[in-house]
């Protein structure tokens, strides 16, 4: 249907790309994929010493609601607990708006593309998730 998920490596990062609408119906698959990446199951490419470096690519997500945001929050927590770094790619205005309204844009590095996410400097601001790894 209108939802798909792909995991692939990219320049030392694991990119989890979500396509479609990220709601309660899609949540379990994304949660499962993030869990695998963080715990080093198949799809994880991380060297143990620096923790997982993950890009959650929502560039092809054209709808997100609080169920989807819950997934993102859970992923941030899990990646940070493992000493890693999570960056999130966002393109659609609707998605950007929801991140702003819920202030998630203040605790996450949001990039406009996977390229930007890979090349972004490490500590973007006071509440960035970067200096944790």
């Amino acid at each position, binding site marked *: 249907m209108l939802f798909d998920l792909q995991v692939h490596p990219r320049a030392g990062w694991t990119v989890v790309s979500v396509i479609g609408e990220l709601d309660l119906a899609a949540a379990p698959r994304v949660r499962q994929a993030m869990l695998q990446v963080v715990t080093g199951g198949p799809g994880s490419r991380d060297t143990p010493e620096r923790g997982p470096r993950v890009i959650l690519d929502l560039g092809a997500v054209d709808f997100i609601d609080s169920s989807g*945001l819950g997934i993102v929050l859970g992923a941030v927590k899990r990646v940070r607990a493992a000493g890693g770094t999570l960056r999130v790619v966002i393109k659609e205005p609707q998605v950007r708006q929801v991140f702003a309204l819920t*202030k998630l844009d203040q605790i996450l590095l949001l990039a406009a593309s996977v390229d930007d996410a890979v090349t972004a400097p490490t500590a973007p601001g006071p*509440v960035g998730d970067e200096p944790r790894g």
Partner: protein
Amino acid sequence: MGEVQLEIPARVEYLVLARQVVAAAAAVEPRFRDERIDDLRIAVSEATTNAIEAHADLSRDERILIRCNLDDERIEVEVLDHAGGFDPGTAGAAPDAEAADRLEHERGLGLPLMKTLADETDISSTEGGTAVRLVVYTPHAQRPA
């Protein structure tokens, strides 16, 4: 102008349908701008998600009714379920959290987001079920003070 009603099984697969119907019903009135229709889609998605989750908790396979009422000033959407209800006064007391607290609120974002995006939100809930009423106004409508 017109009323549209949609009845769906209380299952997550039908969330996308609820959003589509509300967006398409709103689009019948050309005065609604796309951003407001987006706001309404999210608010309806939140209300319907809660209704589906409430039914899942009961493991009863009941149905959810979504009613859209459209005129040239506003669109009103009601989401009605037959689950166990809740106390809207205590739930969703907006975690207007500081950024630092944000991580602690993995759930509970739904009601605050719904209230932020709709121009009006009324929730009435009993043990027999919950009715969530969401209103979004057209840009030029005179809103009640």
